[in-house]
């Protein structure tokens, strides 16, 4: 039920922001960054509220949708669609004669559909691989968009239309109430579709063949996802820019992918990360002049990704490295204990560690003797090892000399529970 509450909350906030937007005059940018930060936190300027709410909605929308495309290995589709809607934006602009969200939305949806169609044709009916087809569609459509935009800027009837640059790089502060309404409605619609069909989307994302076998129309859901993606890209352009929308689709979802293994959590987390990045992006961009929102939003998301990449509890690179290292340390310690039990000598470093942990004490000179605790622990380790050898030779039928070699490595990894079960199994085997 949590996502539903989230959607309702976002909707209410948007409504509140819109209701107050009319009364407040346009803000002027000036003053130091501290003043600006204070103004942002007060949320008294209409454009601040619109920018912030827009960025958060964008983050939620792109994050939630992104979790599915990242899972399906379609990450670069977002990039392609982000570039490819540009001619549609230009045509919509041309048709309306101004920056009206409606015509631009329709034009961009059409361009997105045309791009997806071209990609399909090029992949299906030629030997060109999907990634090359993507590259061609992306660049061809983007080129067409640039041609149209430069053309429009030179047309007398539209002379000097400013604001077109915002399509390219994004400026949340330049969003109008109309833009926000479009963004909010698309976000609400997409999130509702995701909520209603969550099971179907999950099945299609994880295993298409399974999804097909239980009667889910996979093509329908694929196209539904593509439509939602295009819509999300179009309404996000105003705040994030054509180029950086794809980043908001991929980065929050990848970050969440490093943090969790469950799809509902993935989608929720990805939306939350997107929302946070959006908020931070619009906050920082408000702090000074010439700080575009889109790039800042993306950089915030990228920073979170870097954190997760390093420190995610389960999948972080540094966490894994530390876990490996502590495993190695434990193994070295246990090896040393076993050596001592056998009466052998140990390396000074391992010996020092044993003494530090109170498992051994100096027995005069360089000799070490086990303490009572150390002795008990060493005995336990020896027994584990014997059990493991027994198991390997009996159950897995591995030759004894090989078993010893393997057990050297593996004995350290066995938990007490497994050892107990192993013991029981072996006792049973012996009794029979």
């Amino acid at each position, binding site marked *: 039920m949590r996502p539903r509450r989230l959607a309702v909350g976002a909707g209410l906030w948007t409504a509140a922001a819109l209701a107050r937007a009319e009364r407040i005059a346009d803000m002027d940018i000036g003053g130091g960054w501290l003043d600006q930060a204070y103004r942002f936190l007060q949320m008294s300027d209409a454009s601040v509220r619109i920018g912030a709410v827009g960025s958060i909605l964008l983050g939620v929308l792109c994050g939630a949708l992104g979790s599915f495309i990242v899972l399906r290995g379609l990450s670069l589709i977002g990039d392609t669609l982000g570039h490819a809607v540009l001619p549609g934006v230009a045509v919509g602009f041309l048709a309306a004669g101004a920056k009206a969200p409606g015509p631009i939305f329709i034009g961009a949806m059409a361009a997105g559909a045309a791009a997806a169609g071209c990609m399909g044709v090029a992949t299906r009916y*030629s030997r060109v691989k999907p990634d090359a087809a993507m590259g061609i569609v992306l660049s061809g459509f983007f080129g067409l968009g640039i041609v149209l935009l430069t053309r429009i800027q030179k047309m007398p009837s539209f002379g000097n239309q400013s604001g077109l640059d915002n399509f390219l790089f994004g400026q949340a502060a330049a969003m109008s109430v109309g833009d926000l309404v479009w963004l909010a409605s698309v976000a609400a619609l997409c999130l509702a579709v995701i909520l209603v069909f969550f099971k179907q989307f999950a099945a299609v994302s994880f295993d298409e063949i399974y999804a097909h076998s239980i009667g889910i129309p996979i093509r329908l859901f694929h196209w539904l996802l593509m439509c939602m993606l295009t819509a999300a890209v179009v309404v996000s352009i105003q705040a994030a820019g054509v180029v950086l929308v794809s980043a908001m689709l991929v980065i929050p979802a990848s970050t969440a992918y490093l943090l969790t293994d469950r799809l509902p959590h993935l989608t929720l987390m990805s939306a939350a990360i997107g929302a946070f990045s959006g908020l931070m992006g619009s906050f920082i961009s408000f702090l000074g002049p010439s700080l575009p929102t889109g790039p800042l939003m993306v950089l915030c998301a990228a920073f979170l990704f870097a954190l997760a990449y390093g420190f995610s509890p389960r999948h972080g690179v540094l966490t894994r490295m530390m876990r490996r290292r502590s495993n190695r340390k434990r193994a070295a310690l246990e090896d040393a204990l076993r050596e001592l039990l056998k009466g052998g000598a140990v390396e000074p470093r391992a010996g020092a560690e044993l003494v530090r942990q109170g498992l051994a004490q100096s027995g005069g000179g360089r000799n070490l003797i086990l303490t009572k605790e150390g002795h008990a622990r060493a005995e336990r380790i020896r027994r584990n090892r014997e059990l493991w050898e027994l198991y390997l030779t009996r159950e897995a039928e591995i030759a004894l000399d090989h078993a010893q070699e393997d057990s050297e490595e593996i004995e350290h990894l066995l938990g007490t529970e497994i050892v107990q079960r192993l013991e029981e199994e072996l006792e049973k085997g012996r009794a029979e």
Partner: protein
Amino acid sequence: MNDLIPPFEWTRVFVDQWTGAANIDASFWVVATGALAAISCGIVGCFLILRGMAMIGDAVSHAVLPGIAAAFLLSGSRASFPMFLGAAVVGVLTAALIEAVYKSSRIKADASMGVVFTALFAFGVLLISLMADKVDLDQECVLYGEIAFVPFEARAEWFGWTAGPESTMILLCAALVVIGGVVLFYRPLLISSFDPQLATSMGVSAAVVHYGLMTVLSLTVVCSFEAVGAILVIAMLIAPGATAYLFTDRLSTMLWISAGHGLFCALAGWHLSVWLDCSTAGAMAVVGAGLFFTALVLSPRHGLLSRLTRRVQLTRRVAEENALGALYRSQEEGREPLASASLAERLGASAGGAMRVFKRLRRRGWAVQDGAGTLALTEAGMGRAAQLLRAHRLWETLLSNEVGLPDDHLHSAAHLLEHYIDKETLEALSNTLGNPSVDPHGRPIPKAD
């Protein structure tokens, strides 16, 4: 709205651009710059496409932006050595970073690419907008370059000899490096692109080729930045190679075609942009993608049109052969000659469709139609039909003897197979079956002609 597409004036678009010294100079340098960028990118792109790494081009072309911006900030000029170094380093780092992220974590390759290059690009855009008042490097330039201004640049002085505009000369060097590299390392590149395992076994290091390619890629992208901007480079990287890939299987031919594609894009793009008064680089990208989709339709071997033609031809041939078979059987059984309407019914075709088939049969001289509308096979038609029936009945024999299909299932299977066998295979089939003279139903198998 009406002035979106200006009227096309042949003289203004084509003739004027190549008359008068000033115009010729401008046109020449724009086209030369575009062509050099497209050729060097196109050649690098061929290898990217063959290795299935097309989107790496996209990634690197976005990701070099912070390198360009930082070097620009440091050196204050656009065509300087630090700039190339900065961007090339960032380009190679990008490739390495993408690989590191997806190899060391559970992130997949495409997501890793998406995360790395968009983040770097965002950083680059931020840098540029932060220093917008300090240096002349604006956001438009990032997106689509300023190729139309190339002719107005200062001319490079080489050993006291005045060469072309600086960015053109830089691109010339880049093109020479790329072409020289391909000529020198043609074989290792060829082998490692088509068969990486063979290349490894022959002592060609995959890592060296990969990072060598990435270095050259970054260099070309940086050099082309001036002309086409960071994003449209992707058009020049992929469109030429992908178009060439539709025409040929040979690497050398592919490289030549992609170079030709690049040259044509530059020329046609320039005139398109003169006509529409729009971004030249954008026009070049549009021409490039347009050529690809034209080739997709028209390519002789892999094109949609030739595939469609082949399919239509096959459908027609099958329809004709079915009509021949039906006529032959009816004459063989000694029945009355068939009226065209009942034949159409037998073939399961519409009256109109059947009429077209009969018309083709008559034109080929295989059948004649008398005034009453009945059809009869000619001598040539009989011979042709006999060969078809031979195939049909040999297939039936095979399906009965070897596959063990029941007799009442033989006809429909053989009816499909009869169209797809050539003469030699048919004789081989007959030999294998011991040259039977009757089929499982007891009907005679016609002799080979």
